[in-house]
């Protein structure tokens, strides 16, 4: 495997930090300001995409920024898995920027300059996590993301926002300081390094008890992954403006949590160690509990965004489950699910936002017959729901299929049942919404039979993501290849 030294990862991270300066300076002129956001988003995507060919060749790109502690650097390393995640988030940022403009202007929100600045910062942190070469860098950007998203979550600055912001920080920063930080330092003390390696660094360095303890510290410390019982910040964070929920709480923030857990499982513990100590099953059981429980909770939620949030919690655990089964197939499925779920779920959130902008409705019970007023939005919603449930012709099926095959390969059919049950549950809480929106009787409908969509800025992005969800069923290769590449390095010596 070839290592290429390049400054590109650093640039990809920094571009959206740098753009904050003009954003603040010209905060009075909205058009120029949003042009800058666009420049940053597109620039970031181009930078990330330009590294794709190299990665697909099987090489890796490295970049050491600074040496902060003896033997411990702030360094970037772009591998296939990181690339996959960076590609998803940077491409979705472009779409979300468009959507943000429509949403924020449509509702005439306050402090838009602050909103776009912190959005840019959050994306920097996300890409930073994706490209981290070691645990310290990962932790740095993880915390940066926590603080950068706080003003976004609490954008409304009212009492409810404050309460949610409190919960958000307490769970996310609290768990990372209390659990990840000591776990990281213990790892460093045991091994003398924090650099991720495909074979893991803890193997043979620590007693099983310590390894198990560290595993739990990391698993629950990265609370952004929403593993129960550290999940309740996510529904609370839904007070944020919808674009924030869409990109951050369906893609960036929560996926960062899952990404971190996957990175730690593969890069710090290593597949072999987990398999030897049978820890994969433990993680898989924990993930399964989360999957089923949160699906059940989702069914009882009336707030559309809250239902989506619980759905997200359950879907995140799919990814962890995929990794924890410890078979190449399911690992691939887990990684690809990051992408598939991202496109599907962001569509759903965009739809929720579009409904709110157009009609001001937040609750599912108020949405009977809305398909007549907003056919495009609700069609997109249907596609997104299909993707999340895991039905063709949408991308979600590909990842779920892979995970399912993995469970059979390793003779852990119990988890297959979990997958099937949860898929049924997914269908049970998504499809009635769609059904009621389109097929309710005329006496039930709450909306006039007249097409009135949300502003174009809002509708175009959700159409784009819905179309992408379908395309990814047909052309899953980019993500699938990346995931396979990554898994290939991990399972070299199983």
């Amino acid at each position, binding site marked *: 495997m070839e290592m290429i030294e390049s400054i590109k990862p650093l640039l990809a991270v920094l571009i959206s930090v740098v753009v904050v300066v003009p954003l603040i300076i010209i905060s009075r002129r909205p058009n120029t300001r949003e042009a800058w956001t666009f420049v940053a988003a597109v620039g970031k995507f181009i930078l990330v995409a330009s590294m794709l060919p190299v990665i697909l060749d099987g090489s890796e790109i490295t970049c050491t920024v*600074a*040496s*902060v*502690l*003896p033997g*411990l650097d*702030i360094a970037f390393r772009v591998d296939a898995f990181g690339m996959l995640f960076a590609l998803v988030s940077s491409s979705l940022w472009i779409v979300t920027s468009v959507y943000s403009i429509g949403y924020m202007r449509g*509702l*005439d*929100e*306050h*402090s838009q300059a602050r909103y776009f600045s912190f959005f840019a910062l959050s994306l920097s942190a996300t890409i930073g996590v994706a490209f981290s070469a070691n645990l*310290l860098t990962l*932790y*740095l950007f993880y*915390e*940066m993301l926590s*603080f950068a998203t706080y*003003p976004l979550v*609490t*954008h*409304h*600055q*009212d*009492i409810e*926002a*404050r309460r949610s*912001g*409190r919960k958000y*920080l*307490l769970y996310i*920063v*609290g768990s990372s*300081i*209390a659990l990840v*930080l*000591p776990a990281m*330092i*213990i790892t*460093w*003390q045991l091994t003398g390094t924090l650099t991720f390696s495909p074979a893991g660094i803890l193997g043979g360095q620590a007693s099983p008890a310590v390894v198990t303890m560290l595993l739990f510290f990391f698993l629950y410390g990265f609370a952004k992954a929403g593993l129960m019982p550290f999940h309740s910040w996510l529904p609370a964070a839904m007070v944020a403006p919808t674009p924030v929920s869409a990109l951050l709480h369906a893609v960036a923030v929560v996926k960062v949590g899952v990404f971190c857990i996957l990175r730690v499982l593969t890069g710090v513990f290593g597949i072999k160690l987990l398999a030897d100590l049978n820890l994969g099953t433990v993680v898989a059981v924990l993930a399964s509990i989360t999957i089923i429980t949160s699906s059940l909770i989702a069914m009882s939620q009336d707030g559309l965004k809250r239902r989506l949030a619980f759905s997200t919690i359950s879907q995140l655990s799919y990814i962890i489950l995929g990794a924890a089964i410890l078979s190449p197939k399911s690992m691939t499925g887990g990684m690809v699910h990051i992408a598939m779920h991202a496109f599907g779920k962001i569509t759903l959130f965009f739809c929720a936002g579009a409904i709110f902008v157009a009609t001001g409705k937040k609750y599912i019970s108020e949405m009977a017959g809305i398909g007549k007023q907003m056919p495009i939005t609700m069609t997109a919603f249907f596609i997104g729901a299909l993707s999340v449930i895991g039905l063709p012709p949408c991308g979600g099926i590909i990842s779920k299929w892979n995970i399912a095959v993995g469970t059979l390969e390793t003779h852990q059919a119990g988890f297959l049942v979990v997958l099937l049950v949860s898929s049924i549950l997914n269908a049970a809480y998504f499809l009635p919404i769609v059904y009621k929106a389109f097929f309710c009787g005329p006496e039930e409908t709450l909306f006039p039979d007249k097409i009135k969509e949300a502003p174009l800025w809002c509708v175009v992005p959700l159409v784009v993501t819905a179309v992408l969800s379908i395309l990814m069923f047909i052309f899953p290769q980019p993500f699938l290849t990346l995931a396979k590449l990554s898994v290939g390095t991990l399972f070299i010596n199983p």
Partner: protein
Amino acid sequence: MTQHLPAIIIVVPLLSALLVAVFGWIKKTICFVIALPAMGIVFLSSIVLFYKVITENQPIIYFLGGWSPPVGIAYNIDHLSSLVLVLISGVTLAHLIATRQTVIEEFTNKVSAFYTLYILFVTGLMGIVATGDAFNLYVLLEIASITGYAMIGMNSGRAYLACFNYIIIGTIGACLYLLGVGYIYLVTGSLNMLDIASILPGLVDSKVVPAAFIICMVGLMVKMGLFPLHGWLPNAYTYAPSSVSTLMAPLTTKVMIYVMVRVALYVFTPVLSFSVIKPGNGFTWIAVAAIIMGSLMALSQQNIKKMLSYIVIAEVGYMVGGLWLGNRMGITGAILHIVNDAVMTLCIFLAVVSFSSYKKRDKLSDFQGAFKEMPVTAAVFCVAAISIIGVPPTCGFFSKWYLISGGLAAGHYAFVAALLFSSLINMVLFFRIIEIAYFEPFSDHHGKKHHVKIAEASPGLLIPLIIVACMLIILGLYTDELVTHVISHAIPAEIV
């Protein structure tokens, strides 16, 4: 002239203090004009000294009066002291520039006396750090203390009583240190630190040495405000004039911890401190108590300065605990935290001063709307808060990293737990303020545009504030250099 730099860092401020005292009678504004270049020279000289020590990799020893030790007094500027010298002079310079306006407001017709005391205070601290003589240290300690008492007592209201308690308790502390030095003198006959360090290991059986050690340490603990002996600190810092507490909070306790490190490692030598007398475990437990109690007390405060004072008490626990873990990691963490905590404390106290520059903001509830009115100060405040919480890449994270590593290496899990606990409490503390400043006063959010007039502090205060905030991140990123080139040389080789 460079060989005389150790004298210059003391003589220049001393002379400038006298000039301020004389010319300040004639013209008030001249005080700052004299003080600024003097502190500038001190800062530059300290940097040159620091550079020399690092490049030559050996301590600079300066014979005052031309008498070689142990007969005369010598300045012993090694890696540790040159680092702290740069820290003190840098912090002072930033503080001097930042508080120019505040001083004129707070001490209308006593500006000259204030600046004289101010410079003498800093001279005392510089001397404490530079000196290689145990008794000379006491004299300089008293200079710093007496000027400190005077500056604290200058506020109206409860400051008098706070200051009176500080005098009584501070004097006990200094006297105990003096007594400890007397004990050492009794058994060694010497006052020079290097000389004492060469004699003491031969006296391991004597009961006087542990007695001297304990007395010295208790004296220093009183002076630094370690938990059960911290009574004077919160009131003194809270009720002092803000231009004084912003200087004393970053420097006094940190310099006292420096003295503790110096006495433990270079007077009593690591052999005695960590193997023969072995107070380490007990002291670390005291530090654990300090961290927890400091954090909890901070949580119950409504006055911002008092809250910050209790955080200072908790931070003292960090450093003392790190030192007495007795391993290289912990001591590195303690020394690193001296530097980082001084800058962090300066930054957060200056930010509070800046917040109060138009409207008096003492209570937490006074911070309503502060973020809208003063966005730059708010940003700096957040950076400082994040550093105190201990989030990378700010410097607070890296010293905490070393302290936790040291705690784990020593197997002192309670200390590690206390550090993490205090980080979490700090997060609660600061986000409580940030919430008030950011959310309140509440309004209906949708569509309503807030038009709050931006009323930032003067550039004279703001620019040093921003520089200090940047330093928090720069220090964090250069931790590696600092540790490998400076701190690792500052710790005696026999400590592993």
